[in-house]
């Protein structure tokens, strides 16, 4: 049983490391171990939901019924455009500037 637990814990750590990359985060090895440990503990706790038979239940995404909300397709001005651009960490006139994303050929 202990061996199986260790294998499960190891698999979980690998998956959590991949998750960190998916979430666009990056840690040192010791920081990563810290989050693997914490996340594993929480995931072990929330797995108690496995005690319940849920196969025939409908999922609830919103407690109260919501319906698609539409408005008429009218162009509305964006008066805050200038103020929004002024907050840009880096800008080039009316564009947000970012590192190059396309390789030069």
């Amino acid at each position, binding site marked *: 049983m202990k061996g199986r637990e260790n294998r499960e814990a190891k698999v979980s750590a690998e*998956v*959590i490391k991949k*998750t*960190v990359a*998916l*979430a*666009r*985060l*990056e*840690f040192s090895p010791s920081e990563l171990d810290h*989050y693997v440990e*914490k*996340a594993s*503990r*929480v*995931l072990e*706790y*929330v*797995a*108690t*939901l*496995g005690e*319940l038979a*849920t196969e025939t*239940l*409908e*999922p*609830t*995404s*919103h*407690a*109260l019924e*919501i319906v*698609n*909300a539409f*408005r008429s397709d009218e162009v509305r001005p964006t008066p*805050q455009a200038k*103020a*929004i651009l002024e*907050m*840009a*960490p*880096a800008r080039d006139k009316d564009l*947000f500037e*970012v*590192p*190059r*994303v396309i390789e030069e050929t």
Partner: protein
Amino acid sequence: MEVTDLTVAQLSEKLVKRELSSEEITRQFLNRIERLNPKLGAYITVCPDVALEMAKTADLRMAKGDRVGPLTGVPIALKDIFITKGVLTTCASNILKNYVPPFDGTHSLRLKNAGAVLLGKLNMDEFAMGSSNEFSAFGTVKNPWAVGHVPGGSSGGSACAVAASLCIASLGTDTGGSIRYPASHCGIVGMKPTYGRVTRYGMVAFASSLDQAGPMTKTVRDCAILLNTIAGFDPNDSTSLNLPVPNYTGFLGKKVCGLKLGLPKEYFVEGVNPEVSKAVIEASKVYESLGAKLVHVTLPHTRYAVPTYYIIAPAEASANLARYDGIRYGHRSKQKDLVSLYRKSRTEGFGPEVTLRIILGTFVLSSGYYDAYYLRAQKVRTLIKNDFLQAFEKCDALLAPVAPEPAFKLGERIDDPIKMYLSDIFTIPVNLAGLPALALPCGFSGERRGHPPLPIGMQLIGRPLSEGTLFQIGYAYEQETKWHLKRPSL
């Protein structure tokens, strides 16, 4: 009584009668904040120039005899999750430490239009993720009743500020208990409205199917006044309910004789602090003396609420916080390639609890794990919601503790996420079910070596859109007791 101890209703009367001016009282609050905020940490940003300008405008309107409302000239403060044009809005996060919104959210706008005076922005757990206000990038908030104890979270700054008379009233947000829990720990009133009753436009998103804004005040009447102002349809929020808003103050003073109050057995189990159980049971006897009937009910899936929440809320948070990428606003780390820019900006900007929840949320939504975690949690959410629907067949509202114990000590749970998460065991089910709930003070724990008495709170939970009934029931108790009159000595 100091003028800063006045309620919204009391101050409004004095302002209209010109016994006080908004400018005078605003200055008194600003002085009090300067004196006490270094000790309590309630405010992240104080905006004296903005506040005094708003106060003077309010005074001019009243001097001209313009039609004014109950919030005109009243100094309030907002949890730093609410978007306020021209005033720093950080969500207590380094990733937004320099973010000054170019627009007002609906809450800020409705309060402005009502003539309220904004004193500043209040401390909170980062992005509303926390139960103790120890996860802020701008310092810990202290409980004004006992500064070695937490005020509760995530609206800890709001609760502390109202209890310590650093503002007359505040707005907080409640996703898993973040209005009710700190309200209970600080001895004030707080309401989480029905999901959709108050717009979410202008409130930085944490978990979109759970978030709700609500008032935090000294009295039930003040809570009703504030809800009158902020509730109602907003076309900017597609989940905002397009239904009429009643006048909530009209419910105050209605009798509770004949109403049925349910006591859910799962909220009075061993493990709940005996002083908390005793205080809430005593409150139920007050209701009996007023002619209400007590009914025993059961919410059998209560113990699955916390694990359900800690799958759904982080999942939704991971999606909502994906926008913080260092591109358009907020913290950006200078990097040579785009992916490194994303990773470093986010890792540098987010604190530890937010980081943990983003990891959890990303995991439970990822391919191969979605069904076992997220989909399963949504199905358990159905069970939890149905528990309440069945209970409401037997009663008009539920009466329960807010927290299993009074405020714990600073640092006590910060390294144990499960223990911290279990603080919200009685508040989370209400959010999952989308119901309204009103927290109000119902006693104090006994004095002990090491700390003075700590507030105990109860909550009234109602059917969807029954805020008026909750105010009716809460007000009746408040008028029979004196807990709401107590103030911490500071």
